[in-house]
């Protein structure tokens, strides 16, 4: 087995799927430029040499090229389209939400959009418009599947599953988890590497997974926050508080079966999310947990999230924006003693 970071794992997933099925192609900005970067976060680096006809560089026209990808998918191709920063997805919203997500239903099941979309998100010192967590704008759109891998193993398996699924799948990736190296390395990155098996494997698109067993409280998190939650759990263990950490991983649909098993055991739930508290994915999770399992809980579901502000630039404020290990530890202590 080899140890890969998320960028490498995604690159391998894309390569293997393109070798396996010649309907698969990539389309995005700066993804296939000889001597270029392989996309802003190196994911497609080198693939332009292996697949010169199936790596398409596009003009800066997100609405347009997402529409192009959807049109190609309608005709049986299996595109992987990406935005350079998740914030740019908003330009493509009409095509994603009004076209891709609805085409199957409004055709009475006769039209299919086997499309994979990829978007890097998270606050990384670049300022408010290159920093948002965009999941909230697309979860709850009927017809769209949404995943968010916290580690390389999941990233590779989820991407392969997404390519093989006949529906539009949107994968959110965190900029601080790519493990990119060299000139494109991210300051402040977190280690999200995993052992990657040699054999072909996929990860189901609709399942959450328990990362750490515990009994006193369940923390639900995804992407970077999953790592902070794990770190918090390790600290709390020294105080005799055993935190169960759940990697939500599938943001649409939400896996209430796995979530329920955990929450009904611990009877306390905390959701940790990067992004403003109001209207986040955590809001949907909190409501969903309360509806299904609220009667058994020892305390109300709590959310640890960013303040309701755009992302500030200056590091002291951006660090306050991003939920950190200390805030998570604090929240757990309060919930467990309430």
């Amino acid at each position, binding site marked *: 087995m080899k140890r890969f970071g998320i960028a490498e794992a995604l690159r391998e997933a894309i390569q293997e799927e393109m070798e396996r099925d010649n309907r698969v192609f990539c389309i995005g900005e700066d993804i296939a430029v000889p001597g270029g970067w392989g996309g802003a976060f190196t994911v497609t680096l080198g693939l332009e040499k292996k697949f010169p006809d199936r790596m398409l560089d596009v003009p800066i026209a997100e609405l*347009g*090229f997402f529409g192009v990808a959807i*049109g190609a998918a309608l005709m049986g*191709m299996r595109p992987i389209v990406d935005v350079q920063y998740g914030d740019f997805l908003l330009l493509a919203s009409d095509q994603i939400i009004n076209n891709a997500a609805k*085409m199957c239903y409004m*055709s009475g099941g006769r*039209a299919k959009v086997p499309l994979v979309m990829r978007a890097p998100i998270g606050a990384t010192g670049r300022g408010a418009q290159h920093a948002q967590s965009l999941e909230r704008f697309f979860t709850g759109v009927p017809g769209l599947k949404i995943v968010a891998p916290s580690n390389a193993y999941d990233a590779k398996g989820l991407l392969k599953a997404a390519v093989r699924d006949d529906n539009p799948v949107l994968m959110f990736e965190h900029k601080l988890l790519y493990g990119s190296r060299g000139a494109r390395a991210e300051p402040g990155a977190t280690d999200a590497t995993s052992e990657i098996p040699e054999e072909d494997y996929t990860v189901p698109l609709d399942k959450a997974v328990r990362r750490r067993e515990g009994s006193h409280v369940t923390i639900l998190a995804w992407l970077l926050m999953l790592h902070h939650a794990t770190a918090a759990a390790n600290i709390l263990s020294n105080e005799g508080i055993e935190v169960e950490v759940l990697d939500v991983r599938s943001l649409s649909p939400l896996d209430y079966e796995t979530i329920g098993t955990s929450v009904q055991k611990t009877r306390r739930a905390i959701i940790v999310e990067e992004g403003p508290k109001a209207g986040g994915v955590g809001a949907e999770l909190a409501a969903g947990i309360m509806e299904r399992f609220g009667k058994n809980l020892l305390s109300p579901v709590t959310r640890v999230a960013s303040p309701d502000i755009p992302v500030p630039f200056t590091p002291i404020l951006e660090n306050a924006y991003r939920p950190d290990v200390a805030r998570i530890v604090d929240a757990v202590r309060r919930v467990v003693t309430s």
Partner: protein
Amino acid sequence: MKMPDLATTDSDIRLLRWFSQPGQAVQRGQPLFEVETDKAISQVESIATGILKEVRAPADSLVSAGQVIAVFELQSQGSGTSAIDPAPITASPVKVIASAPSAVAQKILGRGSELARDKIQGPALQPLAPAITYERSFLLSLYERMVLIREFEERVKFLFLEGTMPGTIHQCQGQEATAVGVCFALQPDDWITSTFRGHGHALAKGLTPQELLDELFGAITGCCKGKGGSMHVGNMDKGMVPGIAIVGGGIPLAAGMALAFKMQKSPRIAACFFGDGAVAEGAFHEGVNMAALWNLPVIFVCENNLYGASTHISKVMRNTRVSDRAAAYGFRGETVDGNDVLAVYEATRQAAVDCRAGNGPVLLELLTYRRTGHSRRDPCHYQPTDERELWFSRDPLDRFADWMSQNVAVSSSLLAQVKARVEAQINEAVRKAKEAPLPTLNDLNTDVFA
């Protein structure tokens, strides 16, 4: 006849005056009375042919939607018999007699830029002069398909007014030659994308009146199993993607479909229908730019009917010649008389040849006109009367019928037979559609995902 629901708000409906008196004969389609809502004053057409027996709401009185306001004694309007009225049913009470082309050419419209005036006086007024020789049967098939679209849309209009058809409709009477001319120049396995005004495109592409009517009635036997409706008609087995109701939204899709054909090394092409209003959308710019950049086999078909909803084209762009834009992206654009079905057919054939040869996209601007409202509740008061008369004199069906009579020895009784056949087909489809099974609640949550 019940008062149709014309108000888009809960305002009062006031019946102002009747155009016919009890005892008088009326024709289906003839204006019967005038109403006022908070939106507009409009005329409402009679839904039946016969004698107006009784008027149940006096002039200048408030009426409510659904209230019985008139009673007719019907005459049978048989189809397939010799007593066919050869005059087509029109939405307008004015039967325009086409004047000599040169006289009409001098008519100055009060609106529009110099460029718009040039367009209207220009190619639209040349006599039909096709460049290739046609089989008589092919010409008749073009005509019959245009009649099918016109009769379908007229029938749907009345079904909607009757109150039996749910939802809304965006109709295309007057734009039959654009749909038929383009679609008949495509191969059966070529694809089209369409808009919320897609009934004509669907019929031209080969969807049946039955599957469309079933869909408009919301039946499970509809082309989209009742889940799409009027704005999303399509059939993936007949090369039509469900209509995209977001203006301009289909343009990048069509480019993407053409990209797939190119990557698949297939000879297929895509034709993308959109209106003059869509040209302002960013999606137009982005879609045509990429199509040109990658030499994609897509024909961008702009049906320029001078209006985006109720707004005249001169109010939304400085250069109103849509075809000029192609050159800016490095590909070929052409303006065509959109009410000349043979001109449209020939332009599309050439464009298809260019696309299949790998020369990249073509932009066809088809000059045409909507004889009907933007959507069914729209009485078109923003269309000046002289403009309407001018364009009605260029009606695509009348012009083609006249031309065929003069050039192909087609008798008026043959054309009448075409109309009768179409009417019979539509009558049968309506009868079946009204009884077609609806989806059940078990169908509510299906087809969200493939």
